[in-house]
């Protein structure tokens, strides 16, 4: 319910200058805002600055239209869920949840009311007397969430809250957190290094690298139109296949080994004039040439059968390209396989600046008839 504004925020540590650099950002009330980026890119730092756990070196931070740079954490009216949950190991679930309320001297009765409501919502009612070490990872996670919910703070910060969980539980918790946030109308700032989480949970994603914003936008936008090479290779799994390319007339030569005819596709002036081109194509756009005409034959370096899909890896010059096909395909390592690379699915980047020159032609949004 709180709007968060960052104006020219920057951060330097004694030992490391410019951990964050001129961050300008506005997060809307009730928005689920996801922060992604490689390790060390400054995600946690940003979050902790918003929480007031880290001093702000420069710029202005506003929460709910109030400058809060100088306020200690407790006066910012927010809650935070830590990566390792930060549960007090010597307190039981109930005491953990109420810890903050007690510190704030909330009346006993209100404590109990809020506790009950929260605990019911999170399904923790019959774990109240357990110590954290007697809980499973997922249960701990929920306690940490409950602690944040019970505080009724309108702004909630989460730092990689799911990274310690196993895949199954993680999938489950993803849904729960999202549901809760919607229900309570929280403004959520959520740090993760997991792309699936980023893609599936956020209203908007911000990609951070080296303390600079790479792109802010809706998940699908980031997937389809990555602003630069970094975002392209960071968002999506398997990562986008990339290769250096030279354009001669309408023919594209990738990594000195792959010729792609651009046919009738119109290439802007910009692309033609870029000295060093990099092209990218998503794994699902290298198609098996079964129903389609084969554009290339590529040698298979590795095959991974995931059951419902098959990942084939090919060598393209110095690069390894991966294709992702639905179903189970019987391909053998060493075979040369005919594939179809749709030239309209290529993205073009300027190798030097890394910027996107042209995105792949939009995929048609598929719809299911809704009743």
């Amino acid at each position: 319910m709180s709007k968060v504004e960052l104006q020219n925020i920057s951060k330097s540590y004694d030992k490391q200058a410019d951990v964050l650099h001129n961050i300008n950002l506005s997060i809307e009330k009730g928005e689920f805002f996801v922060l992604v980026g490689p390790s060390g890119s400054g995600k946690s730092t940003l979050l902790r600055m918003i929480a007031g756990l880290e001093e702000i070196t420069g710029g202005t931070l506003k929460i709910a239209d109030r400058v809060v740079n100088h306020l200690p954490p407790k006066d910012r009216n927010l809650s935070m869920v830590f990566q390792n949950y930060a549960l007090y190991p010597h307190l039981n679930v109930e005491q953990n949840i109420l810890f903050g309320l007690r510190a704030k001297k909330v009346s006993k009765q209100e404590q109990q009311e809020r506790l009950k409501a929260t605990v019911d919502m999170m399904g923790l009612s019959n774990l109240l007397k357990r110590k954290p070490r007697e809980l499973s990872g997922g249960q701990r996670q929920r306690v940490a969430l409950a602690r944040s919910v019970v505080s009724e703070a309108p702004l909630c910060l989460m730092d990689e809250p799911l990274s310690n969980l196993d895949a199954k539980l993680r999938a489950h918790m993803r849904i729960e957190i999202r549901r809760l946030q919607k229900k309570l109308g929280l403004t959520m700032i959520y740090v993760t290094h997991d792309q699936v989480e980023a893609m599936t949970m956020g209203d908007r994603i911000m990609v951070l690298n080296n303390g600079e914003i790479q792109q802010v936008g809706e998940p699908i936008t980031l997937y389809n139109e990555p602003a630069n090479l970094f975002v392209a290779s960071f968002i999506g799994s398997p990562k986008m296949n990339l290769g250096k390319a030279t354009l001669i007339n309408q023919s594209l030569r990738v990594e000195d080994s792959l010729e792609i005819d651009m046919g009738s596709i119109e290439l802007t002036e910009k692309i033609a004039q870029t000295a060093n081109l990099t092209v990218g194509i998503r794994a699902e756009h290298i198609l098996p040439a079964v129903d389609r005409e084969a554009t290339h034959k590529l040698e298979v370096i590795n095959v991974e059968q995931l059951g419902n899909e098959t990942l084939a890896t090919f060598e393209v010059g110095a690069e390894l390209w991966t294709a992702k096909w639905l179903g189970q395909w019987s391909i053998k390592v060493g075979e040369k396989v005919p594939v179809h690379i749709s030239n309209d699915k290529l993205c073009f980047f300027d190798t030097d600046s890394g910027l996107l020159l042209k995105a792949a032609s939009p995929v048609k949004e598929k719809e299911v008839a809704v009743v």
Partner: protein
Amino acid sequence: MTMSFGKKLVFYLLLAVSALLLFAPAIVAFLMSFMSSQDILTGKILPETWTLENYIKAFERFPLFGYLMNSLIVSLLIMIGQLLLSSLAAYAFVFLEFKGRDTLFFIFIATMMIPFEASIIPNFQTIRELNLLNTYTGMSLPFFAVAFGTFLLRQHFKQIPKELKEASEISGMGDFTFYLTVVLPVAKTSLVTLGVYGFLTSWNMYLWPLLATTDDTVRTVQIGLKQLQSQEQLNEWGVIMAGGLIVVLPTLILLFLGQKKLQKGLTEGAIK
């Protein structure tokens, strides 16, 4: 890991021999404390007849029980004092950020290098001046602040996730409350380690209680033992040994109970 029978045998042999050698002095003392003087003077190894005479005498000759109580009080006082002061200081060094913290910490650590014995004279004079000779305070106060304890606890506190502190900051909890309600309970094990260690070392103190007491009513058991030994002119070894055993029994028990924790706690604090 699997170990062959022969290897096991070798180890047991080594262990048994070492244990025997190491414990021999204590065993000798134990045996002698049950011997009559006659047995001792004739160089017996095992008592001819087991007698409790020596223990009775030891208690009769000396207010050993009072000494034990004094030792207990002084050791407990020092233990509590050390726990309190060290944990407060360690808390500041771990959880608080302020100017000059690292310098102060360095100074604290440097005090480990000052031998107490080297400054015993002025300390004695101070205690005398403060009129604290022959008081429990005088015997314990100088040992409340110990760099070792601060250092040990600091190492343990550092293992408490920083997020606990931050979480409590966000929920608006003050430092002292956090120290009391979170740090102390969470670091229980390390407090026990320091407690046991502090208790053992103060129970075994020698020079200071020797200087700081002149009065039987506050004397500690170590000094009592020394007196027992210097007083028994004709080598009533049985009585002396009985006294010795009475003196070591409480600490041995404490040590055996706390051994595991102590070992773990001490190494952790010592190394990292």
